[in-house]
């Protein structure tokens, strides 16, 4: 390369740099030496950064963590037994001894709200875990193994055609007694409700996961992994599953909300947990008879349900935005 030639090359490079800097594109270019680029950028850290920029989701996350602390740590600070009956203090309003009043048997509402929230959130989380595990499993299998696709998708369609709320009502009424006898009234109802909700809400997750797996299977890295002889189980666990994790997480978050609402709806119809075992839905149901005299007893548990579900929905929204930049802002 002659000298003037090199001179020209350099000036071109300079000019490119200058225009790029003006357009603000230099920051977007990958650094020349990735090892010394400063902050390491893992995928999860990236998602977290995106998530933090979603204001609604951050507020919701704080509120949700607050609610969880309220129901888990709360009972250690506010130590009144939620089932303790103090008949002389019944129907009392907001006071220093009972900040949120008492119910018709003189049980402290604050303590009952804490205990009820613990059950409601536990039901939501457990039912979600069951539904997501089932849904991801069915979605993965039917997306990955072509032979299983048709039968499993027929099964999913069958489940989607089931009238869910009537069936849930039916299942809970029919099997409450025998399960209560073998596991105790509280545990039996818990198992029943959680498995009933889980068994009837996995279909959406299965469909989403199947669609994503079908798309992934056409990608080169899957072909590469297959060509070096990766066995099917490692293929799914190492290569496919991590790549469909983000839709699964979004579905999981939204699943908590659905499960909490379903449980409180069942409780509201009088088909949930036994009366001495409070959940938010049950508290609301118990208070409806006296809502004219004591409206706060209805409003408080209802507010807790709505707030929790709202938070969870917002978190799901933020997660979806953070994980899939294409649909940001929808």
């Amino acid at each position: 390369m002659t000298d003037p030639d090199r001179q020209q090359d350099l000036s071109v490079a300079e000019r490119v740099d200058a225009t790029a800097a003006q357009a603000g594109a230099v920051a977007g270019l990958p650094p020349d030496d990735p090892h010394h680029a400063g902050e390491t950028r893992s995928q999860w850290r990236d998602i977290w950064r995106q998530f933090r920029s979603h204001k609604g989701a951050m507020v919701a996350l704080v509120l949700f963590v607050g609610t969880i602390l309220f129901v888990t740590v709360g009972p250690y600070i506010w130590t009144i037994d939620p089932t303790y009956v103090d008949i002389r203090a019944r129907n009392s309003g907001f006071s220093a001894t009972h900040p949120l009043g008492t119910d018709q048997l003189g049980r402290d509402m604050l303590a009952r709200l804490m205990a009820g929230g613990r059950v409601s959130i536990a039901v939501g989380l457990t039912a979600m875990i069951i539904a997501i595990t089932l849904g991801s499993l069915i979605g993965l299998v039917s997306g990955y193994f072509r032979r299983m696709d048709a039968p499993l998708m027929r099964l999913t369609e069958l489940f989607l055609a089931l009238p869910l709320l009537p069936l849930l009502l039916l299942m809970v009424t029919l099997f409450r007694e025998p399960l209560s006898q073998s596991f105790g009234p509280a545990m039996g109802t818990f198992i029943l409700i959680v498995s009933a909700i889980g068994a009837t809400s996995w279909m959406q997750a299965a469909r989403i996961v199947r669609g994503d797996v079908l798309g992934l299977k056409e990608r080169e890295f899957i072909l590469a992994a297959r060509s070096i002889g990766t066995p099917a189980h490692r293929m799914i666990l190492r290569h496919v599953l991590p790549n469909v994790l983000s839709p699964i997480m979004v579905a999981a978050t939204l699943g908590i909300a659905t499960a909490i609402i379903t449980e409180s709806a069942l409780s509201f119809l009088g088909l949930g947990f036994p009366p001495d075992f409070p959940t938010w839905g049950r508290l609301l149901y118990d208070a409806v008879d006296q809502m004219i005299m004591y409206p706060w007893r209805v409003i408080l548990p209802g507010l807790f349900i709505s707030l929790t579900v709202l938070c969870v929905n917002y978190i799901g929204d933020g997660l979806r935005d953070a994980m899939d930049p294409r649909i940001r802002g929808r």
Partner: protein
Amino acid sequence: MLTFTIRRLLLAIPTLLFISLVIFLLLEASPGDPLGDVPLTVPPEVKERMREALGLGQAWYIRYVLWLKQFFWVEPLYWFDGVFGTQFSSGMQRIISFQSRSPVFDVIAQRVPQTLTVVGFSYLLGVLIALPIGILSAYKQYSWFDQLGTFVSMIGFSMPTFFTGVVLIIIFGVKLQWFPSVYDTTLEVRDWNSFWAQVRQMVMPVTVLALYNAAQISRFMRASMLDNLGQDYVRTARAKGLSERTVVLKHVLRNSLIPVITVIALGLPAVFGGAIITEQVFKVNGLGQLLITAIHGNDIPMVLTLTFIFAILIVLFTLIADILYGILDPRIRYD
């Protein structure tokens, strides 16, 4: 399109049969006994005869096939007789409720109008509210209207209907005394006064359901509008010099409505399910309330028939949604 419809209709038959079998077996596996309320002093042989009279004597598969025959053959025949005055169904056994000892379909026919007026009207209202909100908030994305609309619709489908219903009752039924809190189904609309009473008692249940549905549909509408607003044909339409009104309301809206209409069709059966709760809150004695009393009373034929009707609705509306999608979007070819 026709072959697709026929194929789907044929496929719906095994689906429905399977669902009915699932519901039947679930009821069969239940430990509940329809004779559980009979006093213990009744001797066992009398109890056995009562069981026979309820049709519980045979094996389950015989009863299942019998129920299928009654549902798909006897009841339509009976309806045919009622309409045309023929005598085909005379002497045939209809599906009888355990509780009231009257034919299940007669009871259902009494309850359907209440459910349909409340649920149907609220769904219609919900759609009418949701569409303009969805269109506007997509067109002015990130404006204050959009932010507010998104927030309100988030709240709308986060608040369960039993809570909004109860809050409305407390505010408008108890404190302000504007609307009656209990739905009076015996009310007949004869003159202006009774019409006004009917409107007043419908306001609260309809509002609750309509808000809930509007919240969901407006989100879909917004997302679908946003999908289309960024498309090339929109830019082309604007470049041609079409007015903004034509671009949005003729070009974008028409294309965005295609998925939304299928969502609306798919949501309709779910609304019937959701109405179970709203009916319970406002004491509307419609189908949902009927189902709950039947479940509590171990009324197997009633529960089976009602749940199966819900299943038929779901399968039917899924089919309608698929066909509508094919008709509205000529790019979709099922054959």
